């Protein structure tokens, strides 16, 4: 299937899911379709994602683009077109990606449900009757990816704004280490926390985009210089046996049981894979959220001071200001939504002379403690600090990676969100904020909410749609490791969405209209990687298998000779063809045949009864996981 067809499908979904309000602006679909020739040329079979050319991508509306308006979903910028492209946009375009539109969000990134938008809320509607929160603030980007209106999308993550919507909508959302992706052209909410993040259906695609964007940008003064980049992620690890940390402080009382179960299942799986589990303490976590909601609004109140409608942006109708006041009180009053106004006031207060010591300064101290917490549990020293900092400590307590939930619950309904008070709404960020404060790489990977992993229960629609986000946090600069672990976690429990190709015709029930459920399970991932349908993937797979089998059969005949094979076939009560076919498809046909032949000969010679190997089932729980199940923290 050609990419041209996908372009058409993406474009089709854009109109089909317009009611989800994922986009603030879209390019004409013809732009997407016109690029087919370019996109074809860029792809090679072996390096599927090393090229992202021709793939449709969406950009959060707080990232500047010359072609489309950049509104940050704010009334004050509702007609603003930036005179320049953000560096990350430029990099994507240089790679041949097609920018299809700008996604809806919480105004200036302030919100956790993408409802505080000048253009109306983003909706998560996976099946009839559902109207849930898409998460925020990058909810538009998350929904656009989840509903296949684009292949991938950029968001921004200040306190969880990529990871939370990813968890709610069931896609992968990655917040890299602070300072890796350029913020030049990204409208600042809280500069010291803002990070460009990536949405995709799976970790591999997200990683491919990350590789393209992970370059130093001299335009961004906080972009890590090449000299520092060289120091990142140099630690070599045994990837087959990682030390995985379970932050007990994340097991809060209000954690939704579904989420806790999914978390435990993922840990079990990793343990079964040979990784080890270690409970760790991050005591500053309980103060992290408060610190975040002091620091982020403080920076926001400063960053948003520029929106006065004098040089750009909208002005209020009529005459603004009195002779004694500034000329833009009315403009700012009308241009900003209620949540933005609330945070500006919060920030202005916490920076004021009488409050700064007790709020801003204290919060900065907490931030430092949060960072120290992480440094204490990671085996890798933080590369941003001098190596001289006490690393003679016992390494046995240290971990390579942390695994915890992304959010305390799955996506709440929009009606619940509406009645929530702001403080309660801020609670959604409790698990995502610590990594933001410390600038660490963190990714949210969807995990099925109910079914046991490995058993595709696609028929159960409700559980089928519900997934929860599992968050993987690494030491600063360990972005690669975080992505690799994400891939592992993802493999263990594919949700329909991470498996789905872009051929989605409608969200949900028609996702797997192509092929049987078994085929979908077997070939889904492959189809996604190849960018084709299940049937096509199956055909390609079968063709490859066939070729392999033919080669294997020829090898067997050449090496062992027909005489041996005929004899062996008789021994095992099989026809010659059946006997050859048995080994032709496997990795090493000769070795397989040798083993089998020896076994059969032995069996015959010694007259041993057929051995029925007792499968020794492994104990699947560890004390840690059990412990976790009972842990309640307040």
């Amino acid at each position, binding site marked *: 299937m050609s990419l041209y067809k996908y372009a058409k499908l993406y474009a089709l979904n854009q109109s089909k899911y317009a009611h989800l309000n994922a986009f603030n602006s879209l390019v004409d679909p013809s732009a997407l379709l016109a690029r087919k020739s370019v996109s074809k040329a860029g792809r090679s079979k072996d390096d599927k994602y090393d090229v992202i050319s021709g793939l449709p991508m969406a950009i959060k509306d707080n990232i500047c683009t010359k072609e489309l308006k950049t509104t*940050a979903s704010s009334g004050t910028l509702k007609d603003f077109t*930036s005179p320049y492209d953000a560096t990350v946009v430029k990099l994507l375009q240089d790679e041949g990606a097609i920018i299809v539109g700008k996604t809806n969000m919480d105004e200036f990134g302030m919100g956790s449900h993408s409802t505080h938008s000048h253009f109306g809320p983003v909706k998560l509607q996976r099946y009839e009757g559902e109207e849930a929160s898409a998460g925020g603030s990058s909810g538009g980007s998350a929904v656009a990816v989840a509903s296949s209106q684009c292949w991938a999308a950029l968001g921004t993550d200040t306190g969880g704004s990529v990871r939370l919507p990813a968890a709610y909508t069931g896609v992968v959302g990655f917040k890299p280490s602070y300072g890796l992706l350029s913020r030049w052209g990204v409208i*600042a909410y809280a500069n010291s926390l803002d990070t460009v993040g990536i949405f995709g259906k799976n970790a591999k695609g997200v990683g491919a985009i990350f590789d393209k964007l992970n370059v130093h940008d001299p335009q961004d*003064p*906080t972009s890590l210089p090449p000299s520092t980049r060289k120091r990142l992620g140099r630690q070599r690890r045994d990837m087959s046996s990682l030390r995985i940390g379970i932050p007990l402080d994340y097991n809060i009382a209000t954690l939704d049981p579904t989420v806790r179960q999914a978390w435990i299942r993922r840990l079990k799986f990793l343990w079964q894979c040979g990784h080890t589990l270690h409970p760790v303490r991050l005591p500053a976590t309980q103060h992290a959220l408060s610190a975040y909601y002091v620091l982020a609004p403080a920076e926001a109140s400063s960053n948003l001071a*520029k929106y006065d409608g004098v*040089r750009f942006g909208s002005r209020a109708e009529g005459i603004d200001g009195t002779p004694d006041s500034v000329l833009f009180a009315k403009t700012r009053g009308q241009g900003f939504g209620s949540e933005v106004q609330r945070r500006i006031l919060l920030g202005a207060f916490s920076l004021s*002379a009488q409050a700064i010591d007790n709020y801003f300064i204290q919060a900065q101290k907490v931030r430092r403690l949060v960072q120290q917490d992480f440094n204490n549990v990671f085996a890798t020293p933080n590369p941003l600090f001098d190596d001289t900092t006490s690393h003679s400590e016992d390494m046995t307590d240290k971990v390579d990676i942390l695994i915890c939930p992304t959010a305390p619950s799955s996506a709440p309904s929009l009606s619940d969100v509406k009645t929530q008070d702001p403080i309660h709404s801020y609670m959604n960020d409790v698990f995502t904020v610590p990594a933001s404060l410390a600038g660490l790489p963190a990714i949210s990977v969807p995990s099925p909410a109910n079914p046991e992993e490995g058993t595709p229960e696609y028929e159960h629609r409700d559980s089928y749609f519900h997934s929860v986000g599992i968050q993987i946090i690494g030491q600063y600069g360990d972005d690669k490791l975080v992505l690799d672990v994400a891939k592992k976690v993802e493999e263990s429990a594919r949700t329909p969405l991470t498996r789905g190709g872009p051929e989605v015709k409608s969200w949900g029930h028609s996702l797997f209209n192509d092929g049987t459920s078994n085929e979908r399970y077997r070939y889904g991932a492959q189809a996604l990687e190849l960018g084709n349908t299940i049937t096509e993937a199956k055909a390609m797979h079968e063709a490859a298998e066939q070729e392999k089998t033919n080669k294997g059969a020829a090898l067997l005949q050449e090496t062992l000779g027909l005489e041996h094979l005929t004899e062996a076939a008789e021994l095992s009560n099989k026809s010659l063809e059946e006997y050859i076919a048995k080994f032709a498809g496997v990795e090493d046909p000769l070795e397989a045949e040798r083993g089998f032949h020896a076994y059969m000969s032995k069996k015959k010679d010694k007259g041993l009864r057929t051995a029925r190997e007792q499968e020794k089932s492994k104990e699947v729980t560890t004390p840690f996981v059990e412990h976790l199940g009972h842990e309640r923290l307040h």
Partner: protein
Amino acid sequence: MFARSTRSTLAAASKRRYVCPLCLRRARRSQLGDARLPTQIKSQSFQTESQPPPPQDDTPFRKLLKDAAKQQKKEKGSSFEQPATSAKSTDPRLKKWELTVGIEVHAELNTARKLFSSAATSISETPNTHVSLFDLAFPGSQPHFQKETLIPALRAALAFNCEIQHKSSFDRKHYFYQDQPAGYQITQYYEPFATDGKLTLYPHDFPPGAAPQPGPFDIGIKQIQMEQDTAKTVQQPPSTHLLDFNRVSHPLIEIITLPEIHDPVVAAVVVRKIQNVLKSVNACTTGMELGGLRADVNVSVRQRGGDSSEAGHSYHGVTGLGQRTEIKNLASVKAVEDAIIAERDRQIDLLESGGVIEGETRGWTLGSKTTKRLRGKEGEIDYRYMPDPDIPPVIIGYDLIEHLKRTLPKLPDVNVDSLVQTYGLTTKDAITLLSLDDGSRLDYYLETVNILLSQTKGQESDVPLETIGKIAGNWVLMELGSLFHSEPWDPTRIPPNFLAGTISRVRRKQITSPSGKRLLSIKFDGDRRTVQEIVQQDNLLLSPLSNDEYMSLAQSLLDEKPEMVKDIVEKKQTKKVMWFVGQMMARTKDGSVEPGRAEEVLKGLMGLGEEKL
């Protein structure tokens, strides 16, 4: 030795004349020749700052200085007991109340680029042509600290003896105003790059008689910080305000003095001297007259010897002060002085009538009699200082500081000292030389001295530098001073080697002093010949008469006027000898009769040789 070439170039480019106002003040004062209160006189003199000497005044500049010095002596003689800053004595209330002033000076740094963008700085370019995205605070734009802007800032800090901080950082100072695109100014609040400096004031920094103490004294500088300038508002009456963003983010330094100033004159001198020092180390673009320098002053008064419970305020660690008010945006040295006087008097009036001083911000317009309240404490802006999260800390290497220390242009005070001690000039001449023509006159003088030195080296031994320096100083200040009196200074009209040639011929008595002056005047009028050519072609070379020729010429003159000889010899009207000297010179070829020798011969013939005239 004197790293002034850049400065000279700049000065030449700007075509702006710079005259030391201190010197000018002396000149003006003596010209007025009255004995008004020093403060009043100073007020007047500051008004003339940075302007060329008054054109209606035909007295040579140097004479004005001389007269000023005389006047000063006279004043001291007449009222020796009077304190130097006599303002106190005129207003009895000042015996009771003590003024305290702290100053913040904002100066535009001399840099090619803005503080946080690569846009070029500009003084008078077409409005809104030197503006980057960040300068306009466009969404998504970020600051790019221009390291080069540190250089002039560091030079300034070193000139004020500051401690340079290894690490400093930038903070945001928030307030809304249309000339402030981001809604905040980026400045250095928590960690300024330079702290704990001082400014030394010498008596010569003050107008005659105004120095508060006979020796030098220091005014502490709390800190110097770098910050952004705002946009320029261009008024279009009646109600239009146009914004020119060229000036946005032009690098500024803010110099904050300790509240250690107790006299409006000292405050004015501090501002003036800060300006001069900044110019001399090439840190600052323009002076106050072009808006390159602005000052805010904090003013408070307290009762002398009063208990400190009433005056319990503390600013910058200085305790026991009265409630202060701040007067913002003073654009000239005169405004600084006048505003402080007005505010001091207002505060004393208020306190004496039982009122209370409020901490408030006040304004001052030139020519007004009192400061005007802008906003009170309740309307005081909380600037909500916050470290700028986009700008990494500035780390300044010790090697850079050392290098800048080594290459720091000489400060005015250092030059006065060295000119006096090494070049044999008087302090007064040294100051004049430094202040004239934005340093160009000094360059000229030094070059002339160097040429003279190299000339004498081969031919004469042991001519002390002080001797040459003093002679050269006289010619450069007096003779060139009168030639250029009504025309702008232009060193190319009489190049240094021409002057040096003239001076050395006069000094070796090859030509007479009047001939030397004639040489300069010929050259000044555009003659293209060398000294040698003019001397030869115009026959200026001194060919002295022989002793016999002197005797016979003198004798014949004495014979012509026996009655005058009688007057001289009998009536002791010895001054009439000079008439004969003049006649001897008049009757011979130019330059052949030396007046001293002629007088000697005449007196000998009249038998007056041993008598003192």
